[in-house]
């Protein structure tokens, strides 16, 4: 199977990310900072999704809606820098 030819790098800027989500029509967004850690949870309550953002990783959990997941993916790739990669 084909692997993606572009790899995201660097850190995700959460305000930029939520701004992009809003531009894509996702407006019910709640940002939760986890104590003193660098972990940020982004809750999309109306769209049944949660995104856990850490310095070098992002974990997206959706409840089956491909429309919502593809918007999250689009916003992530818009906000993160990318490099070409061939795995």
């Amino acid at each position, binding site marked *: 199977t084909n692997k*993606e030819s572009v790899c995201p790098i*660097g850190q995700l800027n959460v305000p930029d990310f939520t701004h992009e989500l809003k531009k894509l029509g996702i407006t019910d967004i709640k940002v939760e900072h986890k104590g003193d850690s660098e972990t940020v949870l982004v809750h999309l309550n109306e769209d049944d999704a949660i995104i856990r953002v850490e310095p*070098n990783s992002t*974990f997206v959990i959706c*409840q089956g809606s*491909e429309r919502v997941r593809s918007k999250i993916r689009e916003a*992530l790739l818009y906000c993160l820098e990318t*490099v070409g990669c061939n795995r």
Partner: protein
Amino acid sequence: VVMNNNKLTIVDTDETVNNVLNKNLHHIQYSTCLPIPAKESAKSLFDLLTDVLQDVVVTHSADGTISVDDVDIHIEQEDESCKKAMISWQHEDEQLGSFVCKLIKQHCKSITNEEEN
């Protein structure tokens, strides 16, 4: 592959990004939770996936996890009437991950429709 002092070296992607760009790869994982009919089992989904994805390695481990190349599927039984399939994959496996999701969703929909008719 990185060229350094006129020498070509094959290196791991994480290491390359770190050394050359002085940045880390940002790993993205997607997990999609799909409700599945109560009578569906890991075995029936395994059979479906091996049947459709003949060019991909599909394995079924003892703990019930199905792996389709680098895409993992866990079947979770919430209670007697509610079962879920948690499908997870990394950014680089987007094509296969989204395909597996679509396939399982369509399969479950057709079973539900059959039961209703």
